[in-house]
């Protein structure tokens, strides 16, 4: 954060530009128009267009594969077409009306919201507590080892994690039910992924197992950036470790918390992989999320316009969150 604050300042400090202005004239004239940054504006010339080649590949890839499809998707969400009827036909807002009347769409939206809420509890709330406890109670090498162990599930792919828990949740051979039976809780054992009431929650909990180490690591980095003297002051006041976490650490990582909440919600609305691997949205569409329902509507049910409309809903939600995040980032830079 300090690095970024310096970076942001560097670009704006007046001393940079004034220094460029007082460079001996010989240098300026020899290199004017070369397209280099920070030459005085009057002497820039037109050579700058040659510098565009450095940025052009990135722009080209983004425009062809990100921006163009995105704009087209919004456009297509007002049309109806399928493999059998490949010419898009304008239908106005019919696809969105369809979504509003589609119980599975609402179920999917509910599941995304559930995903977001549970993930905030575990991957932001619990992750903060965990990171703070590690920084407070663990010293030296053990600290790095713990953080690394918690991170391992994030390094393996969510497909592998999903498959692994698919087997863990199995009613007969899965270790969850067998363990419950060993513990005398056999009545709790059930087909976690096979029934409407538990499928999405089982998937969400797998996702917490996979993701909490990642946010714990980020919180650890944020906590280590807190100036030590703030803790020394708390020590002089004779505060114990728990109230030190509550009154010193928590307020000072507020920025990270806000960012993580937004990133987590945004991620929750893009969920696809784990649901597809573990239940493909079933049973009875009870574990559909917007991403999988979009896929099913378009690529299986052949309602591409409807799928595009669902994508537009995801687009609106994620972009709104991203703008909120940028706004918070911007504000923070000024504060620093």
């Amino acid at each position, binding site marked *: 954060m300090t690095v970024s604050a310096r970076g942001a300042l560097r670009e704006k400090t007046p001393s940079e530009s004034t220094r460029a202005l007082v460079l001996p004239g010989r240098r300026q004239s020899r290199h004017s128009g070369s397209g280099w940054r920070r030459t005085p504006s009057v002497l820039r010339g037109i050579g700058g267009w040659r510098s565009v080649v450095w940025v052009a590949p990135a722009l080209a890839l983004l425009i062809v594969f990100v921006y*163009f499809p995105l704009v087209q998707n919004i456009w297509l969400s007002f049309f109806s077409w399928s493999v059998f009827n490949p010419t898009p036909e304008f239908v106005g807002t019919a696809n969105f009306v369809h979504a509003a009347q589609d119980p599975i769409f609402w179920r999917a939206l509910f599941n995304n919201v559930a995903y977001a809420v549970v993930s905030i509890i575990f991957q932001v709330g619990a992750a903060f507590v965990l990171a703070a406890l590690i920084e407070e109670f663990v010293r030296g090498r053990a600290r790095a080892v713990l953080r690394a162990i*918690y991170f391992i599930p994030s390094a393996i792919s969510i497909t592998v994690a999903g498959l692994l828990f698919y087997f863990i949740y199995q009613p007969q051979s899965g270790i969850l039910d067998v363990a419950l039976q060993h513990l005398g809780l056999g009545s709790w054992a059930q087909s976690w992924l096979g029934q409407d009431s538990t499928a999405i929650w089982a998937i969400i909990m797998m996702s917490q197992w996979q993701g909490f180490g990642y946010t714990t690591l980020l919180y650890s980095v944020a906590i280590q950036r807190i100036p030590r003297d703030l803790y020394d002051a708390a020590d002089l006041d004779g505060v114990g470790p728990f109230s030190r976490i509550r009154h010193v650490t928590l307020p000072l990582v507020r920025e990270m918390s806000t960012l993580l909440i937004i990133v987590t919600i945004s991620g929750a609305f893009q969920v696809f992989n784990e649901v597809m691997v573990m239940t493909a949205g079933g049973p009875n569409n009870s574990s559909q999320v917007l991403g999988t329902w979009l896929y099913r509507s378009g690529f299986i049910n052949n309602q591409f316009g409807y799928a595009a409309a669902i994508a537009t809903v995801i687009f609106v939600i994620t972009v709104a969150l991203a703008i909120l995040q940028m706004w918070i980032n911007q504000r923070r830079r000024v504060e620093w």
Partner: protein
Amino acid sequence: MVKQHLSFWGAVGRLLVWGLLIVLVIIVLYPLLWMILSSLKDNNQFLSDPFGFPERLNWHNYVDAWNLGVSHYLINSLIVTVASVVLTTLVSAWAAFGLTKLVIPFGNIMLFVILGGLMLAPTVALIPLLRVLQELGIYNTLLALVVLYAAFRIPFITFLIRSYMVDLPHEVDEASRLDGCSRAQSFWRLIFPMSKPIIASAVILQCLFAWNEYLFAFVFISSDNTETLPVGLANLSSTLNTDYPMVFAGMTLAAAPMVVMFFVGQRYFVRGLADGIGK
């Protein structure tokens, strides 16, 4: 901990915290250990004795998984990962160089267009991308995955490298300019080598992304011999779901490279993650 003497309740609290940390270690590691142990069992033992150690080490599960497609998936994943890492890192580093060290007409707009991509979710582009890929004739090819992985990650990787290059001392490129370096020479000989630490972070993060990506690989690849590991594994488990230990062997093979990579490059990894989100 500055305090020398812990009170009774302090000691209890400390004990509880360590208890919690260790329980979490078990919750994280046990499923992974179970995966590895299960991959070495035979099918009967897997079903009858889920918690036991393998009676014999059935290494042939790995051989079977390898022969039943994992070798193809692994090679495909390797090709896609290496190609997309090279493409993404180079294109992003060029863009970051252009945006921080050169004067570009409408530079701010270009910066906005590139970083604006950070906002956009891949799911949103799924339907139109099908047509785009078909019209370019690269639907169902590894090339499609390479360019998609690059296009959707360039915003993040450029953001990462750019924030590092902004902090490189201005005197360096000024000096190179006075020595008569061209822009290309300055990039390849000075700026790129000086950015090595952040390039390492970018490479590691992009490796992890490309190796594990599922959505595009699932939707835009439709034949067995172009599938990458995540999709291939999911298929392996659904089509051959009678031989579970073999599926576990495949999962272990898929997971191992990135776990090893994380431990080897942990320093750069953490830095990349922290810089990526903490800014």
